[in-house]
Every structure is written in C-alpha cells, then in structure tokens.
C-alpha cells in the first residue's frame, strides 16, 4: 500500500484518513445526537411492509405452529428414533452461536481496547439478547411437555425434588439463564446514557418511554463512575460466561456416549463455531443497518467491515483448525461406528451438506476476506456472512440430526426429515428480525457517547512525512 502511494494521495493523506476513520471525523455531539434521533424516527412504508410481513410470519410460524405442536405432540415435527433431536436443537445452537458475537465485540474488544468496535457494540449486543430469546424459544419447542418446563428450575417444593445437576441440560439451563440475564444487563448499562440523551430530545410517548428507561440518569460524576466500574466488571466477567455457555452446549453432545459426539475438543470447537456464525451475523446486520437506516453511513464505514472481515478470516481459520483436529482424531481412532459416521457425513444422502459447509465456512471466507478491498465492501462481506451462517447452520445440522442417524445399533439407523420445524425455525428467524427492527426504531442503535469518547481520544500525528492515527488512553 505505502509503496504505491503517489504524491497526490500523499498530499491528501490527512483528509483521506479522516474520511476513512469515524474516530478522526468528529462531528459535534449535538449533531451526532440529532442524526441518531433522526434515524430512529425515520420509517418508510417499506419498513412497515417488511415489519407487517415478519409479524405475520412470526404469528403463523412461531406462535400458531407451536400451538399446534403443543396440542398434537412432537409427532408433527420430524424427530424420530434414532434422530431424537432435530432442527429445534440445531436452531438452539445456532441462535446461541449468533448471540456470541455481541459479547465478543462489546466485551473482548472492549477489554482489548479495539477502537473500531465503538459504533456497533450495541448493534451486536442487541443480537446477543434477541438471539438468546430465539434460542430459548427453540429449546422450549424441543421439549415434549413444555408446560412442565419449570421443573428444570431449582425451586423449593414440597417433595424436595431438585433438578438433576448431573445432566448437561441442567447446566445448559443455568448457563443460558446466566448468559441471557447478564448479556441483557450488559446491553442495558451502556444504553442508559443514550436513552437519557433520547429522553432529552423527545416528546410524547417516546419521552415517557425513554424517561422510564433512563432511570433518572443525568451524567453526574458518581453515576459515570458506577457505570464505568460496572461495565468494566461486566466486560471481564461476561467473557468466561460466554465461553462457558457454548462449551456447555457442546457438552450436551460431547458428554453423550454416541459415536461422533464423544469428543473432548467440542468445547472450543463450538465456541469458535459460535463466533464464526456470530461475526457473520454481525456483519450482515451492519450492512443492512448501514444500507437502510438514515445517517448510518456516517457511523458505520468500510473500515468497520474491513476490521470485522479480518476477524472473520481469523475465526474461519481457527474454525477450520478445530474442525480438522476433531476430524483427524475421530478418523484416526478407527472406531467402526465413528468411521461409519464420518463416511455417512461425506457420502451419505446429505453428504452435499458436508461439502457445502466446508465451502461456505472455509473456502469462501479464505478466498474473499484476504483482500482488503473486498472485505471493505459491504455487499461482499454481507454475502460472505450469509454464506458462513448457512454453513454454520449446516454444521449444526450435521452434528445433530445427521450424526444421530448413525449409532451403535444399525438396525435403528434412520434419516431425519424435518416437519413443522421448518415453519417454526422460520418463525424464530422472523421474530428475531422483527425484534431487531422494533429495537432499531426504539433505542439508539449507535452508542453516541462511546463514539464521542473515542473521537476525543483519536488524533493524527505526523512521523516524518507519514501521518498516522494515534489514540490516547482516556481511562
């Protein structure tokens, strides 16, 4: 890059850098506030059309279909012997995976002070919370007697029956509950100053709404200190929680005695897989937000896609590493059922899925994301993110129903064919987008105060003839 710079470019270097980096392109806070407020208030007929459509899909796909399934039993779904688990758990793992990106961006990047995170931490955290809601729906759908699901909760009762803490599903319940609660709190804490901002420039029902949400926040030194401390604790503490959640989800499989599942590497493999799909989802959301919401081109710039694209590439490599690790050890072990299973993955009737998974998760990201220009182009990274999500969904599909088809009792092997899972799955997706659309018009999607804080910390500095970005640590 540097060697290709010509003089003209050099002359415009500073301007170029400012245009490129949000952090070097500050606007007055008031103007940024106004832009964010405007973005929340702007809805086109297209927005409402999509919103209405999604609401209809949610009503039918999620609530009506679920009602049917509760009334009729799981027979309307495609689960059978031996594939006792199907798309419901695929979706559960998928949504929990999606939810990992929010935490990764807002906690890990915050801890490591990766400054590019600032404008989209909230967009990513919203995904975490709403994704976990869908994961919750999916896991409850999966239960045969969902009306008794409260039996999984530990609560004192007259018979002194407590949940079985030997079961990975109990750990799941604890971990997902912990994660859902803490990620929601972690979404809420940095939101308080922004809703306070919105409160200050709203009228009518929105005023009331923001007033309630802002809890009376003014921005006093004390309030900021408590908030900062809390956010700091959260940023550190939520990272192990995040890792634990997907590790425990992986234990649902790894702790079982089934061939193909009983693998010690499943924990990190699942975590990385979660980040893989999560980052893909973040980049899709950002591309859509940038493309459809007003004023967002200022806040979300190619530099952000570029940075996330880089992360995606690294995660893709890590995923490939874990995948190969798992495959190698399973393959080498030589257990006849495992070998049969691996063969079934590749050559069975759903073998195409296995290859598509590898193409979408590895080949395409590697082919595209190494190029800075491509990974800075929103539609390209959007497409890559979409493919990664499809690929990661396939990965879970391969791990759950396809692997369940093969076991140690060949007399029972049988394929799984989804039934009502399809409308239900589409319902969760629609509901996720619906929640996100509603949230995008109700709460400030851009953490303005964080952006302003970042812009304060960044400046250009000249080293000889080179102008570079420097950032000072404010805290």
């Amino acid at each position, binding site marked *: 890059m540097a060697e290709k710079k010509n003089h003209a470019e050099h002359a415009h270097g500073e301007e170029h850098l400012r245009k490129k980096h949000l952090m070097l392109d500050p606007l007055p806070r008031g103007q940024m506030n106004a832009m964010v407020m405007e973005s929340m208030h702007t809805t086109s007929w297209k927005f409402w059309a999509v919103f209405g459509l999604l609401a209809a899909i949610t009503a039918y796909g999620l609530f009506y279909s679920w009602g049917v399934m509760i009334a009729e039993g799981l027979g309307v779904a495609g689960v059978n012997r031996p594939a006792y688990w199907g798309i419901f758990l695929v979706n559960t793992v998928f949504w929990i995976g999606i939810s990992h990106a929010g935490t990764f961006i807002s906690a890990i990047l915050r801890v490591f002070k990766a400054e590019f995170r600032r404008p989209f931490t909230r967009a990513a955290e919203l995904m975490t919370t709403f994704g976990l809601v869908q994961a919750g729906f999916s896991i409850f759908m999966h239960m045969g007697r969902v009306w008794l699901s409260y039996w999984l909760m530990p609560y004192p009762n007259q018979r002194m029956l407590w949940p079985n803490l030997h079961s990975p599903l109990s750990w799941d319940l604890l971990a997902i509950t912990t994660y859902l609660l803490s990620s929601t709190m972690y979404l809420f804490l940095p939101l308080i100053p922004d809703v306070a901002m919105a409160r200050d420039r709203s009228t009518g029902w929105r005023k009331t709404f923001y007033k309630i949400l802002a809890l009376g926040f003014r921005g006093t030194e004390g309030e900021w200190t408590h908030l900062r401390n809390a956010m700091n604790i959260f940023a550190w503490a939520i990272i192990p929680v995040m890792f634990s959640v997907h590790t425990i989800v992986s234990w649902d499989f790894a702790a079982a005695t089934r061939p193909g599942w009983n693998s010690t590497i499943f924990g990190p493999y699942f975590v990385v897989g979660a980040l893989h799909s999560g980052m893909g989802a973040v980049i899709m959301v950002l591309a859509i937000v940038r493309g459809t919401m007003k004023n967002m081109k200022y806040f979300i710039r190619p530099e952000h896609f570029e940075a996330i694209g880089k992360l995606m590439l690294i995660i893709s490599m890590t995923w490939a590493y874990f995948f190969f690790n798992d495959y190698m050890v399973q393959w080498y072990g030589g257990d006849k059922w495992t070998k049969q299973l691996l063969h079934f993955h*590749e*050559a*069975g009737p759903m073998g195409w899925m296995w290859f598509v998974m590898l193409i979408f998760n590895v080949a395409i990201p590697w082919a595209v994301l190494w190029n800075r220009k491509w990974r800075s182009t929103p539609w390209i990274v959007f497409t890559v993110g979409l493919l990664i999500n499809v690929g990661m969904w396939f990965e879970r599909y391969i791990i759950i129903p396809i692997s369940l088809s093969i076991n140690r009792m060949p007399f029972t*092997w049988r394929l799984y064919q989804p039934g009502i899972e399809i409308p239900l799955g589409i319902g969760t997706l629609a509901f996720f987008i619906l929640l996100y659309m509603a949230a995008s018009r109700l709460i400030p999607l851009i953490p303005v105060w964080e952006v302003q804080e970042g812009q304060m910390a960044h400046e250009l500095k000249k080293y000889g003839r080179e102008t570079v970005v420097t950032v000072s640590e404010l805290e």
Partner: protein
Amino acid sequence: MSEKFSRRDFLKLAGVGAATTAVLTGCGPASRYVKREPYMQMPEYNYNGQSTYYATTCRECAAGCGLIVRTVQGRAIKTEGNVNNPLNLGKTCARGQATLHGLYNPDRVMDPLKRNSRGGESTEVMDWEAAIQVVADALKNNKPEEIAFLMGMAPDHLFDLATDFANATGINAPVRFGALGMFEARATLSKASENLFGEASLPFFDVGGAQVVFSFGANFLETWLSPVSYTRGFASLRESKTKQRGTFVQFESRMSQTGGKADEWIPLRPGSEALVALAIGRLASESRGGPMPRAFSSVDPLEAASKSGIKLETLEHLAEMFAGSNNALAIPGGAALGQSNGLAVAEAVLALNAISDNFGKPGGVYFSALAPNQAEYQGPASAKEMVELIQKMFDGKIKVLFVHGVNPLFELPTSLEFGGASKYVSQIISFATFPDETVREADYVFPDHHGLESWGYQRVTTGSAQPVLSGAQPVVSPYYNTRATADVLIAAAQLAGGIFAEALPFKDEVEFLQSKAASLMNAADGSISAADINTFMAYFQQHGGYWKLSDARGIPNAVDVLNRNFSAEEAQFEGEGEFFFVPFVSPTLAEAGANKPWLQELPDPTTTVMWNTWVEMNPETAHELGIENDDVVKIISEAGELEVPVYVYPAIRPDTIAMPFGQGHTAYGRYAEQRGVNPADLLGQHFNEAGDLAFAGMKVKIEKTGKKQPLSRLESMMGVYGIGLGEE
C-alpha cells in the same frame, strides 16, 4: 447349565408358581355366565386391584392352545398360555397375545343385523327373537339337503353340534375350511399318510427329539399346524444342554421365517422337491451301504442336481448328514405341497424318514394323537372339496348357507368364485363376530360371542403327544348384544320343531357341552375325573380342558415304504410369466389377524414390514428389471393382477417372487380395510392330487408401474442393507 435343573423343570415350577399366585378360577357348578354385579354385591375376587384368572382356549387359529386370561373387574387384561395344557405348556404365539384386540375391537358386530341388500352398507338392527325366527324359518322352509353349514377349521363343539344336527336332520354335513389349512396343505399330508401308511392321519413330526431335521417347505415355526408346539420342538432341537445341538436344513425357494433359522438353507428350484428328496434318499442309502431301496433306485442324483439348481456336492454333503444320524427327520410342508405334484413331494419326503427308520420313535414321524372324544382324524375341507360346495351353490342346490368362523370371500382364491356362487344361494346367514367380507355379502349376521366370551371346547388335532380337549369358558361377560351360535341353533331348532327340535334336545349350549363331556367323566387315564357332571365341568373349566395322561400318538406302519415306487416328476406350473409365484401366510397376521391393530404393528419376522403387503424379489432380479425397494409393480397371473410395492429380499431365488397372505381386506374393520393386497386374487384353479390348492404352482409376470409406495419397516434400510449410506 447344571444337569439337575432343566428347562422343563423350570416350566413346571413356573406352572406351580402360576397356580399359587394366580388361583385359577373355574366357574362354580351353578354359574354359567360371568355376570356384572352391582358394586354392592361384588364377588370377593372382583375387588379393586384383584385379578381373576380364567382358563380357556385360544381361538385365533385351529391349534387349540390353552390360555389363561387375566381379568380385572370384568375386563380381560392379558392372555397367557395355560401351563397345564400339554399342547402349549404355558406358551402363546403373537396372535394368541393379541386376541384381546379382537375382543375389544371397536369394529365388532354389535347386534344381530339384517342387510338390506347384499354387498351394501345399509343394515337394520334386529332383536334376537326375530333372529332366531329367521334361522328357524330357514330350517323349516327349505329342504334339509338345501341347507349347508360352512365352518371354520377348528374342530370344536359347534362343529360337533352342527354335525349331530346334520346327521339327525339330513341337512348337508358341515364343511370346515380355513385358508391356513389350504396353505398348510393338510389334505395332502393326510392323503400321503394314507398312501404310505394306510391311514389317513395327520402326521406329527417330533422335531425336538431329532438330531438332523430336513424340512421341505414346512414353515413349522410360523403358522403350520401347531406353531407353538413346533417352536417348542425346535427349541429342544437346538438345546445344547442335554445333547448335541441338532442341525436343521430347510429346502425352499424363498427363505421363510423358519428357513431363517436353518443351519443350511437350500434354495431349490420350485417343483423339484420330490426329485431332491429322492436323490438325497439315494445318496444317503449309498452312504449307509447295503442294498439300494427300490424307492430311491430310479432317481439320478445328477439330474436332480441340475433340475433343482443344487450342486451335486451339496446334495452329497446333505445326504451324508442325513445318513450319518440315527435321528434324522424329514418334514414335507408348505409351498412344497401346494404344487401340482404336491402329493408326490409329501410321499417322497415322508419316505426319506424310512432311511433312519424313525417311524413312531423319538425324533421321528408319528400320527398325531386323536383328541379324547375323537374316533378318527377329520381334516378340514380341501380346496377341491370347497369347489364341490361352490358348484352345488352354483347349481342352486343350496338355498341356505350358514357361515361361521370362516371368511370364504377373503380366504378362498377369487378364481374359485365363491362370490359368484353365493348369488345363487337365497339366504346366507353369517354368525361372524366381525364384519368381514362374507358378512357384507350375507343377508343376516347373527354375531357369535368372541372366543373369550364363549363356552366350548376344541379338539387338539396335532402338536401334543397326549390327547387333548381344550376347554373354553367365558372370561368376561359378552360386551355386545351377541349370542352363542350354538344357543341360536338350539333355540331355532326348538322353534322349528319336528326333527329339528329332536335333533338338538338341549336347553342351551352348556347342556350340549355337558352331554358331550359326560363320556369323559370317569374315563381312565384322564387328567380330571368327577362323580357328577357339574363337578366334572367345573374341573374342566378350571383346568382349561381335559387330556389323557399318556402318550397316544399313533405309529405309522412303514413296512413297505422303501419298496414302493415314487414319482420324481417335477411340478407343472400354470401361467405364462417368468417368475415362480410363492404366496405364504403372514406369520404374524395369518388369515384373520389383520383387524387387530397390534398385530398390524408387529414387524414381519423376515422383512420387518408392518401394516402392509409387499412382494419379495431377489436383489439381482430387481437390479436387472431396474426395480428398487418400494417401487410398486404389477403382478399379472392368469387369474388376475394386482399392484404391490417391492421388498428387495436377499434370500429368494432370482426366478421366484413371494407375497404374504393376510392383508388386502375390503371389509374387516378400520385396521384391515383397504390395506395391502390379497395374493389369493392371483391364484388359479389348480389342485394337486390330494385336492389341495396348487397355490405355489403358478408363474406370473411383473410390470413396472412407475409408482412408489414406501413400506413401513422396523428395520433400517441403511443399517441392514447399506442402502442410503453412500458409496464406499
């Protein structure tokens, strides 16, 4: 296994256990029917949570196994075998287990019905007085020779009653028929017995005592003759505790459930069984040395090998195996007899037994013990005899047909035209408990009780060394407005008066039973005896019947067997197709199980298919024809055609296809109707020399239809056949 404790001991102990935990309750001398009493006057054994056990007889097939039915508060809960009954020693088959699904089937005939037009749906409920009047009028208003009884295969008290009635009044002697008897080729067995040993008895094969068993098509572990008893025999053949494990070889063109248990399965060309049997006889005699018996002298093993498709070495090895044992047994049966040369096959295979001279010896061939009140073996009607009846119907010689215990419209091949003949019968009265095809074509149905609601007895035809008369009693009170056919006949005869009333001078069914049992009361060697008939009948019900204590199997007179000439002719096959067609009785459904949902849900023992009919085809054939599993093919015989999905079956000759019999009902309740097809629709009018239907004597064509119909299988096509696992 220690020597001091055998399986038989265990069974005995289990019997004692059953007797102590479950006190078998016979109805007291005064009580004839189980009654539902108000709660206030509940008999002590009907208290909440208390089970009462009744001994009775299984009516699902004609074998006559003893049952013990557990009832709770007037409801039958579970059937178990009667440990004391010498026939089944406490065991049951799947059909015996599922008999309760017949009792409590939602589709039973609930009232006496008059059908407004034959074949139509619309019926009128009658009361029993009117129904009995209808029967009485039928008796009175027709000449006796115009009245006929068509009954089920079981030689039971109703058959005795009808026989006595017919003898006294001059109406036609009752005809017993069942598809099982047709597929077992019982007439051929007894005819062969007559030709060889001079006595038309049903042979009994002591599988359990043998060391080497050669079965030519006999599906004795499935529905053949007495499956529970033969299965027990098979178990002791294999039992390695007391002796060396017995060897079992099956000769058949399609591996049956029985063949699946064979140590060697020999897929010979259909029709060559007699030839193969004689060739083995020759080779075995050679191996034993001494003069070549006349019976085997004319057969050429090389020709047998080439015509049967069995390698000569295999024949030699089998012959050596047969000759090498003093306890070798050869059994003819099943499809091998249902061919044009069926009688020759039966004779040739029976002759093989002369090599080990096992007649009347343990592990050999006996005549089945006759039941205690039976003078001679009475086989059910052969298909040829049915044709005679049908012809009489066509000729208008039969005006009234009483049908009980059989469903001729389903069980007889369509080509025999029972349906067509029935149009010439002015009045058809069915006594069926279930609305089957024949009921739909009958003018009246006066439903009998279900077997578990009725009195009676049944003679055990074969399977037990001791003579057995299995006793039946109601274990529950009748659920619907049904009436015992015996009672209906008695009442109608009284009403008709004259010779009819004189022929059946009984108050009711129970009195008739007592009159029949009276001769056994103080007979020697009986399992029970009593001074008065009421006590005797109480014991009879309590123990589930009456049996002699000693072995009464007949010993075939086989002096001349080896000096006879035997025909080694191959069977003639009718029809133009390229495939031998082998229908076999579904081991789980048999002829009358399709209405019981749990029998439908039992996987077929060989294919694991549930709820449907399939046609079995060799993988190689299927590959050549471009047919895959679940492809629907059309099978065309000279008598008819039908469409059925394919099961690619690895253990069938490439030139043979096979279909189970048992499904394809057009009536018979919700679980049976419109399910599968009936291979009897393909069968033509061909018989063997003994008059049995040559059901396996046809060749058929196959056409692809391009349709698919997935068969419901318990097994995994991936795990068992590797289908859908992907190429290696």
